[in-house]
């Protein structure tokens, strides 16, 4: 973990309100596990706290983040220009830990793709991505994946399976059950809840990356907790014990 100054080298729209930010850091982030994140000081005086973003890619001194403009922090970030200075704290949290010999099923909803992209790159052709989008345009987020098999769903039915991504996974789940399946998911809380409902009868291993409002990103403030089944200490920090949790430990 390090706090590294950097300069924006790219901040471009991918599609809709999704953007990709590249930063040239003074030093490399070092070893990043898929699913880890960084806290970014947005170059805008009105944005007081840092913002957490999944590491989309980290190569040498170049960091890439994919984000969706959803509030005042990401709005300010979208206005940041090339060469604008920012600070990047990371890598933070605990990422995905794929089990050996399992068949990986990756489930992403919308910007949740940014949280599993490094994992997909790591798993390569072993994985299948189930990608849920609102419409066809959003599928462009995953166009850089290469040869990984992608099954897509769109809410508006403009491409692939019409409906949500968990519904799509439901149609294919039986194909995986004899192959030691392991699910890795990142997406909105509604997606995670229905994923849990779908998997409940088969109880296969599932790791899920959660999203919470954060202040510090490194376990100092206890602001970003999620409720778990641990009765003695139910609230775990998304930034420290997470953001990746065992789905079966979470109280959703």
């Amino acid at each position, binding site marked *: *973990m*390090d*706090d590294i100054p950097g300069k924006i080298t790219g901040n471009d729209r991918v599609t809709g309100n999704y953007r990709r930010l590249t930063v040239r850091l003074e030093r490399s982030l070092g070893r990043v596990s898929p699913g880890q994140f960084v806290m970014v*000081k947005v170059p805008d005086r*009105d*944005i*007081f*706290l*840092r913002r957490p973003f999944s590491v989309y890619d980290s190569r040498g001194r170049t960091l890439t983040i994919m984000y969706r403009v959803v509030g005042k*922090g990401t709005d300010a970030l979208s206005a940041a220009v090339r060469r604008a200075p920012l*600070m990047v*704290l990371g890598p933070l949290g605990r990422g995905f830990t794929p089990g050996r010999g399992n068949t990986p099923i990756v489930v992403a909803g919308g910007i949740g793709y940014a949280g599993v992209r490094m994992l997909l790159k790591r798993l390569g052709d072993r994985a299948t991505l189930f990608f849920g989008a609102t419409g066809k345009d959003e599928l462009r987020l995953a166009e850089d994946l290469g040869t990984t098999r992608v099954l897509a769903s769109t809410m508006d039915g403009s491409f692939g399976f019409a409906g949500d991504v968990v519904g799509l996974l439901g149609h294919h789940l039986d194909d995986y059950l004899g192959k030691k399946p392991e699910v890795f998911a990142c997406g909105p809380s509604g997606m995670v809840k229905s994923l849990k409902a779908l998997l409940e009868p088969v109880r296969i291993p599932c790791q899920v990356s959660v999203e*919470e*409002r*954060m*202040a*510090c990103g*490194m*376990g*100092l*403030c*206890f*602001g*970003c*907790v*999620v*409720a778990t089944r641990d009765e*003695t*200490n*139910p*609230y775990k920090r998304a930034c*420290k014990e997470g953001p990746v949790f065992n789905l079966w430990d979470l109280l959703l």
Partner: protein
Amino acid sequence: MGSLAVELFGKSLKNPVMNASGTLGYGVEIEPLWGVDTMGAYVTKGLSAAPHHGNPTPRVWEERCGMLNSIGLQNVGVDRFFSHYFPLFVERRCPIIVNFFGFSEEEYLSCARSIEPHDLIVALEMNLSCPNIKMGGISFGKEASAVHAIVRSVREVTKIPLIAKLTPEVKNLVEIARAAYEGGADGLTLINTMPAAVVDVKSRRVTLKGGLSGPLLKPVALRAVHECSQAVPIPIIGVGGIMNTEDALAFLMAGASAVQVGTATFVDPFAMPKIIAGLDSWLGASGLAGISAIVGATHG
């Protein structure tokens, strides 16, 4: 070269900078970036006799110049702190201040009793912003008589120096400060967060009620330190919106013997080491023998 060392309750701290309770986890979390012994002392997360789970989310909210929090005093309990986290401070020879709380007099007493004196324990810091369940949930810190009574009770069960951390949400803070002093407090920490709320205009609801911290609290805290430090003859630890060296100096000059840095660490995790280095260069340039020489410089 002047010295940043300060003496607090008979113990020597290498500098007057410490974290505000609850803003540096259990201490171990900052270690990947800098050692806890960088600070004059570590202030524990608020501890209670029994563990507390804390509040559901949202627990934090950003404001333009600060933030709100409603963590709900989540902590592992005082016993677990000492068995699990205290050894790090022993290994680093880092003095600590033990912040603690209770929802009843009995809970304060049982927590204070359970803490054995130790070479590295500078003081106990009582969080007086907790609601007193027996008094219908009114915070202990709001009435001078209640402050006097609770400080006096705790004073009787421990030999460790006792600091009262006061809430600014009172009619007359100087009166509360005097009550704490007369109850037997050896020092005061001024101030805790201010009660605040966030309203979501879309849903027409209050999103979060919590304690306000950050730079917009600084002038409120400075006034509290300035006035109370002249009203009571015990050391004051100043806290509220300190973001940089100049802010820390302002608190020392207002009458604080030491300062606590909280929210700044979330914005810049190196805020404290930077402030300590900044105080050192300021002191060097000032020609003063020690940082203590400027404590209360604003007093007439």
